């Protein structure tokens, strides 16, 4: 009986939290049109979330691609179809690993930066000061960061996938001796637009989810050192779970 009660309260609490996140998202969307009038602010945030994450994304993409090249080659060799390595690696990267790993890295690199930045602004009264200067912090600070993340994430995922494919080629063709012509031509023949679309849809949705979680946690962080730390941790944990959950849903929807 007690267990059911506890489950019920935690369910209600989770629904309440979800509701406030959705309300926050609606507030961000309502403020977005006016925030778009200041493209310079958004560009700066694309730089912060996107350009500054490039090195980690490119390095990870290269290594993930190289591992795919090795594992894929090993597996396909058993069936004597190493030439399909290009297709296998590309589908794996574009549909799955590109968006998911990029989003996880994005949550760790850009998401935590956003959450701690907003949390510290809250803790040092900078957000209240803006409100007192009749400047809406949602429109001036939060929305540009949110939109910057939403725009940067699909671009990063695309870069991750492209570098990953080169990584797979590097190992498969240069190291393991798969024929370069069949690697590329099989890839071109078998990877369709729908595969790429799935990757784009995933990375866009992950971009919205990661950026939203980061700015929400930061904006509502308890204004203490501990509170900001907790907000940062929650950003990564919640993002990771949400990314993997949505990944399953979207994959199922595209079947």
């Amino acid at each position, binding site marked *: 009986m007690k267990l059911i009660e506890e489950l019920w309260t935690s369910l209600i609490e989770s629904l309440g939290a979800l509701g406030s996140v959705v309300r926050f998202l609606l507030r961000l969307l309502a403020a977005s049109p006016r925030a778009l009038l200041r493209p310079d602010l958004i560009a700066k945030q694309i730089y912060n979330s996107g350009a500054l994450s490039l090195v980690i994304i490119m390095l990870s993409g290269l290594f993930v691609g190289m591992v795919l090249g090795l594992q894929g080659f090993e597996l396909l060799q058993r069936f004597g179809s190493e030439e399909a390595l290009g297709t296998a690696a590309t589908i794996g990267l574009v549909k799955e690993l590109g968006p998911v790993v990029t989003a996880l890295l994005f949550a760790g690199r850009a998401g935590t930066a956003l959450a701690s930045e907003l949390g510290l*602004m809250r803790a040092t*009264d900078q957000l209240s000061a803006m409100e007192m*200067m009749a400047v809406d912090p949602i429109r*001036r600070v939060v929305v540009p960061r949110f939109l910057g993340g939403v725009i940067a994430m699909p671009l990063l995922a695309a870069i991750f996938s492209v570098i990953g494919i080169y990584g797979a080629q590097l190992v498969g063709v240069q190291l393991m001796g798969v024929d370069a012509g069949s690697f590329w031509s099989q890839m071109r023949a078998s990877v369709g637009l729908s595969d790429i679309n799935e990757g784009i849809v995933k990375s866009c949705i992950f971009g919205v989810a990661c950026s939203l979680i980061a700015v929400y946690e930061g904006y509502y962080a308890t204004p203490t050192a501990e509170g900001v730390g907790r907000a940062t941790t929650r950003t990564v944990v919640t993002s990771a779970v949400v990314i993997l959950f949505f990944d399953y849903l979207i994959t199922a929807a595209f079947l």
Partner: protein
Amino acid sequence: MNQSAAIIEIRNASYAVTGRPVFAGLDMDIPRGRITAIMGPSGTGKTTLLRLITGQVAVDSGSIVVAGQELAGIRRADLYVLRRRMGMLFQNGALLTDFSVFENVAFPLREHTDLPERLIRQLVLTKLQAVGLRGAAELMPAELSGGMSRRVALARAIVMDPEILIYDEPFVGLDPISLGVILRLIRRLNDALGITSIVVSHDVQEMSTVADAVFLLSGGKVVAKGTPQQLQTYPSEIVRQFIGGLADGPVPFHFPAPDYFSELLAGGEKS
């Protein structure tokens, strides 16, 4: 516009946080063009009062009229229009850490006006000159001392030429020189710009030198009001305790606790 003597009128205002009343039936008139000190022991709701006056939180009942505008049920857009006529100095300055001193002071101008860069520069330098920090225009907030941060924040608060300037604990943690500078600035800005200054503080000595009127809050009520001189001889226990800095009195030294001996004899067992 309402040109009465009081620029802020609080009538029968009540406000509670999670069921615990902070104010119950508060009445207050803050005179126009003067320096008004709001004083009182810690935890009496001084900062809450500022949040009510600035519309950061709304009263549960009663009314607060600021510069002719009723705050109860005010629309967000109207509140933002009203706030352009107010400046506020936060306890720690609350400077935007990404921006230089110059950009911090320019921030309200850039957000609210389309002034040409040359004019913005002139306005910002004038305000920085008024607080004595024109030479620090290119520094970042992290490079400033506590007193300098507050002076920059003060320049930022006056850059839109507000009618009301609110200071939240402006003297906390300042060395005597910086403190003297801030005191002088409060007086000078008030008289030179003809604004209304509201200073929340518990520094009795400092405030008695600068304030025109004092409200002493305790337990969510105004327990005394008058000039600093009148308060020195005010016939009330709580006022005497506060002004004299006595450790015990109507505000007890001890936080409410169970009986001392019985708790000691309980041998560390939590009941």
